[in-house]
């Protein structure tokens, strides 16, 4: 929707303001980073490499260490061990003010005593740029984020979305080698968020700046990023293109965290197949290691189910959500197991809440895993 068109139009969108030349990004590496806070390992052997000009979204549940990873890259957090390299050189011991990065924070971080223009010019003032040049550059950047008319306003006179735009302009003003964004949109309402998300991506592409974007919103991550890194308890679980992470998760955590899946008990059959809900379907590629006859859990996407109204079916429709062309149905099966299935809206007449249905697996599962120790 808006996201896709925004990204597609990026090349032909408003040109970057005069004084802001497109920059070739640098390569960024975090290597075996460790950081503990008492008992908690916020980073536990965390490694990630970002290619020049690439936007990587770091996705993960709350408290998994995303902010810590970003701050370690910025130099705002000391590492217990590990190495940070920017453009090939080791910056682990370099203080944040000499790493040449731009950062946008989750909390509103504009300096309350300065106008939007002064905020954007702050980094340039530190770099001893003459006042006229500084003002010109700051104006260009405010134009870039669409706030040229608000340059004289103080932060308290700007909306949340406007403040984050100014913060973005401020971060970009110093022509950073790397742009770091820590959930900059999470305090904004859905509409502004989608808009600003597109805008960040457009500017990032135009400037070709290497970017790390932290979020716990998977839609944000999947729609914006060149690659998505999924993180859990201080470790990077998988990093890959959005479709890779979505279609070929490397473990059950990634499969369950990205997108919607249902967990269903199954039995491995002969010849790399698995018996799911009375149907034999092929095991996913690279997952043939289970011995025939072993009990497993399979993870299936909603579109891998077929749901038929059937008075003798064992499933019971618990909830339904109509989404236009398709609908989602939550079906309770014996086990007890609950699955989410996508079915065409044309079935809306028969598959209603409380009706009995028959459920079949129609496709290969996304992932096969050991059954959970405790039955749900």
């Amino acid at each position, binding site marked *: 929707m808006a996201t896709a068109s925004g990204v597609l139009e990026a090349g032909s969108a408003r040109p970057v303001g005069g004084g802001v030349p497109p920059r070739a990004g640098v390569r960024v590496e975090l290597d075996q980073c460790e950081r503990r806070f008492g008992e908690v390992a916020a980073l536990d052997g965390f490694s990630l490499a970002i290619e020049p000009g690439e936007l990587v979204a770091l996705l993960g549940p709350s408290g998994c260490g995303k902010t810590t990873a970003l*701050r370690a890259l*910025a*130099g*705002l957090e000391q590492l217990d061990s590990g190495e940070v390299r920017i453009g090939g050189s080791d910056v682990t011991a370099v*203080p*944040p*003010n*000499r790493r*040449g*990065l*731009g*950062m946008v*924070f989750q*909390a*509103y*971080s*504009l*300096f*309350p*005593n*300065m106008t939007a223009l002064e905020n954007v010019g*702050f*980094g340039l*003032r*530190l*770099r001893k740029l003459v006042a006229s040049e500084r003002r010109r550059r700051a104006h260009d950047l405010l134009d870039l984020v669409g706030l040229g008319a608000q340059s004289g306003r*103080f*932060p*308290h006179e700007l909306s949340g979305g406007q403040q984050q735009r100014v*913060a973005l302009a*401020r*971060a970009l003003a*110093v022509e950073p080698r790397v742009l*770091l964004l820590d959930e900059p949109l999470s305090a904004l309402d859905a509409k502004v968020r989608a808009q600003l998300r597109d805008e960040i991506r457009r500017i990032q592409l135009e400037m070709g700046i290497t970017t790390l974007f932290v979020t716990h919103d998977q839609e944000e991550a999947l729609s914006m990023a060149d690659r998505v890194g999924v993180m859990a308890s201080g470790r990077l679980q998988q990093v890959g293109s959005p479709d890779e992470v979505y279609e070929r998760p490397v473990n059950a955590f990634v499969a369950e965290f990205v997108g919607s899946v249902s967990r269903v008990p199954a039995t491995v059959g002969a010849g790399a197949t698995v018996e799911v809900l009375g149907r034999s379907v092929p095991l996913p590629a690279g997952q043939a290691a289970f011995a025939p006859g072993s009990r497993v859990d399979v993870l299936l996407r909603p579109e891998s189910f077929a749901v038929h109204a059937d008075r003798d079916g064992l499933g019971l429709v618990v909830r339904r959500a109509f989404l236009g062309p398709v609908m989602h149905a939550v079906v309770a099966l014996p086990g007890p197991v609950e699955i989410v299935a996508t079915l065409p809206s044309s079935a809306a007449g028969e598959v209603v809440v409380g009706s009995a249905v028959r459920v079949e697996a129609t496709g290969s599962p996304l992932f096969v895993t050991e059954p959970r120790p405790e039955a749900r």
Partner: protein
Amino acid sequence: MAALTLPGRRTTRGAPTRAEFRVGGWARSIVLLCTAMYFLVPVVASARYALEGAHGTYTLAAVTALFHDPVLLQSLLTSVEISLGAAGITLVLLTPTSVWVNLRMPRLRRAMESLTLLPLVVPVVVVVLGIYGAFPTAVVASPVLLALEYVVLAMPYSYRAIDGGVQALDLHTLVDAGRSLGASWPETFRRVLVPNLRTSLLSAAFITIAYSLGEFAMANLLSFTTFPTELFQIGTEQVDEATAVSVFALVLTFAVLLGLSLLGGRRRAGGLRRGATLSVGGGDGIAAEVDAVLGHVDPGVPGIVHETREVP
């Protein structure tokens, strides 16, 4: 509104009646009047006493006489120097301390608050004896020492003013933002934190100045000739002149503080973030300043005279 009505007059139905509101209004006026009288009567009486000439006439002789007293003027200069010094040291010492505690050791915040209250608990005489014991005579005679002492004595007020302002800032975010934009620690402090602490820092400075200008006991015990001690000296011989000077000092200080409050208020309305609690630090600070002034400059003559009589 309801808080101002007298508890005994409350109707059982709960909502205050019209009459209650009127009583509330009266009660408020009376409270305000009494408070005003409490502060104004001594000042007016002192002023009258100082200006009264022979046979019920009024004369400015006492006021003009004070400008021709070189010792008094010198003592005023000394006091101003010491109080400015004390204010400067206060800002330089306490601002980084408060920032550091809030940023890096938030668990020590409570402990710091208690620690800075200690000067209120330890009597000045005890401190003076400690100073005599701890330092050689040459050091004890230096006005720098007196300035340092005033930093400590005014700390219960000044630290609170600064700390209130620091706590009202989103310190972590501002510091991180400054640092990531290329500011070194000193630059972050000077360009990001100090401008946003302006009101609190002004408050702290003025509390310290007001305290130092009016402090008598410590200066007297350490044998300094400061404005209050000289005033006391004059008071033993020419009471009307001393009274004139103290009234003059009081009015002047009050005018300065009022000006500062107005300035602080305007600043807040202008540049700073709406809803930011900078006013908490600033507001409390001003109140504390007025306390400090009324508690120390005003009793310059009558209050402290009593106190010193008890000290042999």
